Every structure is written in structure tokens, then in C-alpha cells.
């Protein structure tokens, strides 16, 4: 893939909250997803990490997040807010592999042609990884791979 213009790209992430093991997701349009993982960490005074990162054009990343939100609306936590959160209520027993497959199915079949997944060797992404993807626009193939469906339980 050719070099890509950074400002048009965004991240979709999966997170498992370190203290509660609650599964969540979200997007950030910031260059370094480290800023976002730090926000999660500061608010609970404990380090958090992203277990998956997807990178693609802003409009496709936003559409992907909208899809996950609406498709899994009933599974979203509504405990601590009047609105449903981007955390999944544990009572539904949704696991990371379920979320990965939901996301992969949409990316592959919609398809979102610009969205790729960060390779396993660069994950998880934690508070210690500031600047890890500084060169992603220059050499995206180093960090990113095509999304694949994984086997379910």
C-alpha cells in the first residue's frame, strides 16, 4: 500500500478494562492512540491497554464503530449513565473473539477497503507504547495486515 495521509485516518480499538475485565471499544482520530489509552488509565488511576487496533479512513472507521454500536446495542452497559456505553454488559457473556468476528465480518463484507488490523507483534498497546506507530503513514505494511475471520469458540 502507498503512503497514506494521516489526517484522513483514524483508529478503532478494543479494550478490556484491567480491573473489571469488562470488554469495550471506541475510536480515536488522534495520530497516536497512546493519548486515548492514557485517558482510560488516568480516569481509573491504573494502566490500561488496547487489545486490538484497526486503522483506516476516518469515514470507514466511524461507520465501523456505528455498526458495532447499533448491531450490539442490546449488549451495551447502561449501568452508570442514562445512555448506553461503549462497554459491553458482562451478563451477555460477549468475549473478545465475538467482537473480533463481528468487526472482521463487517470489514470484509461491507467492505471497508482501507481498514486493516495492527499485527499481533505490535499488540497489546499500552501506556508504555507512546509513539509506536509514528511511522505508520510511511510504512503501513510494517504494522498492518488484512483482517481475517477467526474461529469461534
Amino acid at each position, binding site marked *: 500500500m*502507498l503512503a497514506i*495521509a494521516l*489526517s*484522513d485516518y483514524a483508529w478503532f480499538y478494543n479494550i478490556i478494562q484491567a480491573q473489571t475485565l469488562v470488554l469495550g471499544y471506541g475510536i480515536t482520530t488522534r495520530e497516536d492512540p497512546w493519548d486515548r489509552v492514557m485517558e482510560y488509565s488516568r480516569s481509573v488511576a491504573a494502566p490500561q491497554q488496547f487489545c486490538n487496533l484497526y486503522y483506516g*479512513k476516518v*469515514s*470507514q472507521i*466511524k*461507520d465501523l464503530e*456505528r*455498526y458495532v*454500536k*447499533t*448491531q450490539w*446495542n*442490546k449488549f451495551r452497559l447502561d449501568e452508570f449513565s442514562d445512555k448506553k456505553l461503549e462497554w459491553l454488559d458482562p451478563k451477555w457473556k460477549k468475549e473478545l473473539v465475538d467482537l473480533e468476528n463481528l468487526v472482521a*465480518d*463487517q470489514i*470484509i*463484507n*461491507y*467492505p*471497508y*477497503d482501507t481498514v486493516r488490523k495492527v499485527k499481533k507483534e505490535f499488540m497489546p498497546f499500552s501506556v508504555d507504547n507512546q509513539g509506536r506507530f509514528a511511522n505508520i503513514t510511511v510504512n503501513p505494511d510494517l504494522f498492518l495486515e488484512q483482517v481475517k475471520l477467526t474461529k469461534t469458540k
Partner: protein
Amino acid sequence: MITKFITSSKLSKGKAVTQKTQITWTPNRRKVDLSQIDDPLAKPKHTLVNKKVNQLTDEIMADKKFNKQIEFYKTNNITFDADAIPKFEKHKLSELLTPEEVQRLLDHVHMTGIVTKFDPRLLSPIYVVRLNGKVELFVFDSMHTLTSVAVLIQEGLMSRKNEQTGEREVITDGLDFEYPCWVIDTDDESFPMVAALYRNGDGSKPWGPYDYHRVYVRSYEFYGNVGPVNSYELAYQKQKLMVRENAVPLPKGHEDLGMVGTLGHIEAVSEYKPADMPELDFIMSTNNKYWKGTNDASMFGFYGNLYQGYTNVNQPTSGKQFDAFLNELHAVIKTFFTSMPELKSATTAAYKEWLQKQGKSSGTPPYNCALSIVLKMYMRLGGKHPVPSDVNMFVYSPSSNVKIDIYDSLPLSVRQDVSNSTL
């Protein structure tokens, strides 16, 4: 969808020619599984349950927020006086007073509607407050019911069975006619206003568009009731069309709403008259063909205006050439905006900026605005199919030589991509 990347310039007959990126439509291969949706209208009649009260209480007590309120009452020994429940009594119409400080103005149009469709089986009790046990009864709800009954009695248009003779006879009681009232006894003079607010606001849950649709569809499907001007039958036809096109309508707040294959905008569908059904069919089938069960509200404005743009000038909306045009149009949307919701967001932002250039405050984009923008892009990308006149709209011309086109309010990156691409 961008299918090839060519960034280098090539020499052709001595001229530098920059090849453009060709965009094509990539079909959506997503499978839509409507069986995952809890569709109230998909249930056959024999499976519908008449819930017992304990089933209702069990359901609501499982709600955490509701349960917390009940627990609060119990914890603080807060109980309620069952003797204060209003009582059913029959009173002469002449005893009922309608206080100006409580009631709205008598709505003459609403009154005509009530009398036109009058059916005594649909009458409700008159809601009244009795202050300090006095004779006067203050009406706080059902003023229009009271008025319509009084008129029909006075005009000799109501009859009843004489229990002694068994014959039906015209009621001649006038305003001495006794009517069922729901009576609240209180010594609080402000209570009629409180009660009026509660009956018409805080304590009521008005029916939404889906509730009407549900009743219309079931009335026709279960009992063959076509409804006034065949409206129930029409609702049933729309239901079948929506389900066929992966757009199962659901009420607001339904936990499956938003899932692929659901539609939350039954109010938009309700507006289509029998003569508009071909347009609705075009909207639903085109949206499903390209977006496979993703049903954004913007589809009605986009595809509706597209359909009208051709049919109004007697041009076809089907056939090989038109299908090829639709593929190109959707390649534009998918390549530059990804989806209809993202197109809607981009349209809103562009419209806002376009208005600001005219010194106007922002507003909601007209229904054909997104279509106009996409058509402008289509033409710039070298589209050859005839397009509706919407393409020429959203151009502000403060003087003869100045034209401010909404296209120029799209993000620069989008416009650059358009100029570097071709169909």
C-alpha cells in the same frame, strides 16, 4: 471503491497525462438475518399472549431503576392511601363546570373530527375534581368528549333502550342526562391543574407512529379490517414491503433498533399514499440493494428525490442503463463517504458552511441536498447518464458573475480526491 492506485505521470504524445483513479461499485456481501430481530409484527396471532397482571409486575420489577424506587418507598415506610383513588359516579351534564384556568380552548376542528367519527363505544369518562365535597364538579380532562355528548343529546341524536317497554327511544333529558365521571375528591384548589397536567403530560404516554402502524397492520392481517379509506390494508402492504427489503420497522426504544435489517422511521413510511407506493418500493428496494439492511433515515430524501427527478420528466427508473447509473452513483457515495449516515454528516457540514458563506445561520439541509451533492460529484467524475435537475441546486448567486456552489463547501480532501478520480 478505489480499484487501482496510479500516481505516476505518463507521457502520451509528448504531453504529461496524470491518470486518474477509477472508482467502481463493490457490492456489499453482508448477509442479513432477520431471524435475529425480535419483530413484534412477525408473530402469528396464535402465539400472542394475553399477559396476566403478575407477568407485568414481574417484568417491571426486574428493571433496576424501577425496583430502586419501590425499595426507596419500602425503606422509608412510605405508603399510599387507597381511599384517595378516584371514584366512578354518574352526574348530570349540567353539574360539570369547565374552569378556564385549567382547560385549553375548545378546539373546533378536533370537535368536528370527534363528531364525524362518533362511536359511543369509544367514549371515555369525564375526569373531574370535587373540592371539599361541594356540588360543583370541575372538569380537568375530556372537555371535548363532554361537549360532543352534550350536543348530541341536546339535538336528539342519542337514543337508549327503555327497560320497561324494551323499545329504543330518543333521549330527551337534555343536560340532565347522567354521564359516567371519574371523580377526585380533594381540598386542594390547585389540584384540577395538577391533574390536567398529569393526565395530558407527565402521566400519559402518547402513542407513537409505530403504535398506530402496529394496530393497522394487525387489524388487517388478523381480522381483514381494511380500515378507513383502506388505510389498514395499505399499512399491511407497507409492512410486507419493508420486511421484504430488510427494513423491519421497530418502535422507539426497542433494544434491537439499529441492528442491520431494522428501520426506526415508520413515520416516514406512514406518509406514503397508495399512489406513492411505486416510489416507496423504489426507495426500499434500492436502499436494500446497495446497503443490505442498513436503513438510514436519509434514504427517503435521497432516493425519493432521485425517483421523482426522473418520473416527473417521464424518464425511466429501471433498466440496464439506469442500473449502471445507480452503480456509479453508489460508487461515488461509498468511495467518498463510506455510507449513507456518513454522507448525511458530510452534507450537514457542507450545508452549514455554504449558508455561512451567504451570511446565514445554519439550518437542516433540505431533503434533496445530499442527492444534489452526489450528483455534482458524479458529473465532475465524468458521469454520462442524464441526471435530475437537483444537480443544479444549492448554488448561491449574489451577482451575475458570482456563483457559490455547495460543492465547494465539501472538505478539500474530498474535492481533491474527486478531481483525481474518474468513473
